[in-house]
Structure formats: C-alpha cells, structure tokens
C-alpha cells in the first residue's frame, strides 16, 4: 500500500515537473482593436488550460505591420505569434517564413473555417494563419432617412441606386450627408475602398502580363463616379476621411449611408456610442451589373513565424484563440453580438447568433467575395482590395495619394489616373514583372 502511494506520489510529482518544464511564455504581436483587446482579457483562461503565459505587444496597425515585417524578414525571433492579414499571409507563406498550420487537432475542426477565409490565408492549399475574425464590407444605412426620402433599400443595390439615394438623403442644412466613403490616402484606407469599388466597374490593377490598367475606361468610370457622387452627397473634406472619421460621422447621425467594414456594424448599433443605433439597416455592397460587387475580404489572423522556439505553445494558443470554445466563452460573458465574427461557419449556424441584426448580411457579404476571382476580366493576382504581391503596398500607397489629391480637387481625375499608370508601370518594371 505504502509502495503504491509512493509510486502515485512520484508519478504525480513527475507529471507536475514535466508540466512545469513545458510551461512557456509566448510573445504575441497584435493590433489594437476591440476583438483583440477583448481576447487579451481572457488570456487567463488559456493559461489555466495550458500552463503557458502570454506577453502581449499591442501596436497600431501600421506600426505593427512594419514591426513584424522587419522581424520576420531578419529572423529576429522577437515574437512567437504574429497578427497578420490576408495580404501578408500568402506572401510570407510562399517565402517559408511561417509555420504551416497543417497539424491542428481534430477537436479544433479546421474544416469549420469559412472557405473564403481559409482560401485567403493559404498558399497552395496550405493554411498559414488561423483567422481570429474576418470581415467583408457592406452598406450600413439609416432606415429613417431612407424612409423619409421615399426610397427602399434593396438587399443587393446597384451603384446608380446608391447615388440616387445619397442625393435624396442629403440635407446640408441639417448636416446630413447622403453617403460617407473612405477617401484617405493609404493602401489599406482609401486605396482598399477604391480598388474594391473598381472591381464592380470592371476595372483591375493589372492585365495578365502585369501591365497597369489605369488607362482604361473602367478605371475612369470608377473614379469619375466616386468623385461625382461624393461631391454631390459626401461630407466636406471626404478626401481625408478614413474608417474612424466616417464611423464618427455615422454615429453622430451625419451620414445617410456608409459602405465599409462589416465589423463596423457592431459599433453603429451599439447604443452606448451611436446616436442612431436603433435605425440602422444593412445591404450588400453595390454593383453595376457586371457580376462583381464592390465588397472586400479581410481577416486578422494568427500566424507562427518559422524561427520560433515555442512552436507547440504557439500552436496551442492559436487553437484556443480561434476555437469554437473561445466564441462560446465570449458569448457567455459578453453576449453574442460581441463574439469575433466572420471566421467560422458554425457561428452562422448558431441560432443565438442568427438573432444578431447584422449577422446574416455579414455572412452574405463574406460569401460573395472571392479573392481568387475578384475582377470581371482575368487578372494575375489574388486579392480583392489588394494584389497579393510584395510590391503592392508601396505602389498602392502612392497611387492612393494621387487619387486623394483628385478627390480634394488638387488635380483632375485624368491626371491622377495618368500618374497612377506611370507609377505602377515603373514600379513593376523595376521589380522585374514586366
């Protein structure tokens, strides 16, 4: 009996010691947004389940992008998990900079990840980052103003309808702008919006030989339509408005419509922050009847840099943070409207989540976006609001600066497009694509 007890004690001690020996502290670089900050608050749950501690490095999106890019390209090893997006993942995966997530547990159910998300976060069929939350873009509109204008928003409107509705809702005397859209320079700000919009007008960044396409009618139509509509019905200074500026305007009741990220739906319907929370409707991003809508696809995802020494702990964290259990945990503590959206199919099959007002439109928007087939005419790149090549961020930032200057009236649309054409072709030639 004594021997049995001694053996049990030794075994227990051995297990405890082994557990302690494998308890790691992982460092995670992440962005500052509501869902990521919420996740940090639940880190104790992960630590309790696995014994691993977590150190967070939270940075503003652009700073984070520069920081993690520097680290991964130099194999710095400062982070065990990096929060990256759909733009970086396929490029970094192809370069062998990320650990393939092809060995996730059966319990994790990787097959439950929304196909559009899994596709955008993979390279040659291998998943390199697990989506923490995903988003598309859609129309958020004021139901009361739409009613006052005597119009009814269809589920899938055209750009012509949107322009007409914007003009009808505009009431300058009462500081109401019919439509608020991003115009701010930056590839992830106004650049993302206009690229997604151009898809619906039949435009594309490159033809199959990587020649810039800004000299086409499709791009001229896109920019002229955007500028014409915004000059008629947009807010003053729209050329410098990004997500936050438009969110602020919409929450204060100064926008009739806003086309932007689906995650904004939870902000504009939150009565604590939004003055119009009870009169917001949703619709798919508009099209022009050419077969492509103007919505984008994006995910913030967790990836493991190839040089990490703590791959096991990092994998465990990713399985925890992007699991069905985590969604249940947040729902139990903070309600279904606050769970990270857009990553898992099962979330949209959940009866509780179906009652969230923007759930179905978010799913429909995500499902209607295809990063592998985003343009009307064939294009050589993957991505909807971007082209997943390393050169794109730099080129698109410059191009969007030219576009913003056109919105602000500092140059004509024709001049902006001519400059965009030259900038892009020069850069692509220098990079060896042409």
């Amino acid at each position: 009996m004594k021997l049995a007890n001694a053996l049990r004690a030794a075994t227990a001690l051995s297990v405890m010691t082994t557990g302690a020996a494998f308890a790691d502290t992982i460092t995670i670089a992440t962005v500052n947004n509501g869902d990521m900050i919420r996740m940090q608050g639940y880190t104790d749950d992960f630590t309790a389940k696995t014994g691993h501690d977590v150190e967070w490095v939270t940075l503003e999106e652009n700073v984070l992008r520069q920081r993690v890019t520097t680290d991964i390209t130099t194999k710095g090893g400062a982070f065990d998990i990096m929060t990256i997006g759909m733009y970086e993942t396929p490029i970094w995966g192809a370069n062998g900079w990320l650990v393939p997530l092809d060995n996730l547990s059966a319990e994790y159910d990787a097959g439950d990840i929304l196909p559009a998300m899994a596709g955008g976060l993979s390279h040659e069929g291998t998943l390199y980052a697990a989506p923490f939350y995903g988003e598309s873009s859609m129309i958020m509109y004021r139901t009361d103003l739409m009613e006052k204008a005597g119009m009814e928003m269809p589920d899938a409107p055209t750009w012509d309808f949107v322009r007409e509705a914007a003009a009808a809702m505009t009431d300058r005397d009462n500081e109401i702008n019919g439509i608020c859209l991003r115009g701010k320079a930056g590839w992830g700000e106004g650049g993302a919006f206009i690229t997604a919009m151009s898809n619906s007008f039949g435009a594309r960044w490159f033809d199959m030989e990587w020649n810039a396409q800004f000299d086409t009618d499709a791009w001229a139509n896109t920019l002229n339509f955007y500028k014409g509509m915004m000059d008629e019905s947009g807010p003053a200074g729209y050329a410098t408005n990004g997500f936050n500026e438009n969110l602020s305007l919409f929450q204060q009741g100064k926008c009739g419509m806003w086309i932007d990220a689906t995650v904004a739906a939870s902000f504009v319907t939150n009565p604590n922050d939004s003055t119009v929370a009870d009169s917001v409707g949703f619709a798919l991003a508009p099209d022009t009847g050419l077969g492509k809508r103007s919505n984008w696809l994006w995910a913030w995802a967790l990836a493991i840099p190839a040089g990490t020494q703590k791959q096991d702990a990092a994998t465990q964290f990713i399985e925890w943070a992007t699991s069905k259990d985590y969604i249940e945990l947040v729902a139990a503590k903070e309600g279904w409207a606050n769970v990270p959206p857009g990553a898992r199919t099962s979330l949209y099959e959940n009866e509780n989540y179906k009652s969230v007002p923007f759930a179905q439109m978010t799913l429909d928007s995500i499902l209607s976006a295809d990063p592998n087939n985003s343009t009307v005419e064939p294009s050589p790149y993957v991505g909807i609001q971007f082209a997943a090549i390393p050169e794109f961020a730099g080129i698109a930032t410059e191009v969007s600066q030219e576009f913003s200057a056109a919105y602000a009236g500092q140059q004509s649309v024709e001049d902006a497009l001519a400059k965009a054409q030259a900038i892009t072709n020069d850069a692509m030639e220098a990079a060896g694509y042409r």
Partner: protein
Amino acid sequence: MARAATTQRKALNTALAWLIGFLIFFPILWTILTSFKTEAQAIASPPIFLNFDWTLENYSVVQERSDYMRFLWNSIILAGGSTILGTMIAIPAAWSMAFVPSKRTKDILLWMLSTKMLPAVGVLYPIYLLFIQLGLLDSRAGLVIVLMLINLPIIVWMLYTYFREIPGEILEAARMDGATLKEEILYVLTPMAIPGIASTLLLNFILAWNEAFWTLNLTAVDAAPLTAFIASYSSPEGLFFAKLSAASTMAIAPILILGWFSQKQLVRGLTFGAVK
C-alpha cells in the same frame, strides 16, 4: 507719450506671448481634457470643451490593461541612461573642438550633424540585424546606446557652442597652475558651463523620452518604453480617442512636470550666449 506707447507695446507683446503660448499648449490641453470624456463625448461635433461629465474611467481601463509602471521605468532608464552616456562622451569631444580646434573641426561638426539628416528607416535593417547578432534586441542596454548615438551630434554641438563662450585664458591659467587635463575639464570648465550642460541634459532627456521610431522597432516586451505604451492605444479601426488621450496624458505627465520645474534652467541654458 513715449512712455504710454511703451506700456501699450509691452501689453501687446505680453498678450501676443500668452496667445502663442496658449496655441502651442492647446493640443496638450485638449488631450488632457479628452482623457476625462467618454468615447462618445470625445468625438462629439461640435466639440465639447468643458461642459461634460468628467470621468476617470479611461484611466481605470488603461491601468487595468497595461503595466504602466514597467513602461515608465523603461522610459526613465532609456532617457536617463542615454543622456548620461552621451554627456560623458560629448563633454571631452566638445572641449577638444572648442579649445584645441584643428583644420578639420568644422568639417567634423558638420559631418556629425549630417547624420541627423538620414531618415532613420534607411538604417533600420542594418541596425536590426546588428541587434540580433549582438543579442541586444528588446534590451535596455541596446536602446540606451542607440538613443545616445542619435542625440550625440546635438549634445556635442550644444556643448561646443557653450564652451566657445568661455575664455580660453581661464583654462590656460588653470593649466599654468598645474591642473591636469581631467582636472581642467572637471573642476574648471564644467562648473562654468553648468547652465549650458544642464539645458543640454534636459533637452537630450526630452528628445530621448519622445523618441518613437527606434523605441518601437527595437523593443517588444522587456525594454518597451512609454512610446510603445501610447502606440498600443492607437487604432485606425475603432474610436478609442478618450483612452488614447488618457494613455498619452500618462506618458507625457512626467516630462511635463520635469519641464515645468526646470524651465528656468532650460531657458537660461538655451539663451546662454545669445545676447552679448
């Protein structure tokens, strides 16, 4: 009549100085006010100036979410360490340039200043790789060296300017009295240049405190100072201006207090030799 005009002019100058002072301080004041608002009040249009329900909630959230003291301590070490190290190197360098100039002194001074004209991002990768090789990534020691090197040209230039105001004959007299080089610098030159050295120290401390490129790119957890603390509250997708303002206020408070108490010394040092 002339006297009345002078009084009027003085009043005008005073009013203008107050106006300019207020304009310069207004962004800081606005940040501090915003830190006591709710997120909805922070973005209200028209903006609310004072008529809002003051709340400490943002400070409470920031305290709960971040280990402020760790960031503060790192800022003190980095700014203090780089300032002390830089001064130790700059005093002898400025002494030699001021009192034992060579044909190339002016060229060296200009060359030192020219290093400030290089965009930092241009040397990010070489420095990052060096830090990896030397095991200095996310270490205070590495950051102290980098910040010292960044500000060294300014310290040398400032000290050189102050030292040039000191008559060389005094140092010569000390040498004739048998003072060694070390004694000459420590016991004769340094006490006479105290206002200049103090203002240089303060300015360098402030520059190092506010440095936000290297401190963000070369740190992660252990050496991250208050610049990283602020960066963690900035977001292009979400309105967290009130929390960002609370974090900013907490980050700038120590340096504001330091500047307030040392303003006399700072002004005296910065205007040292300006009027002859």
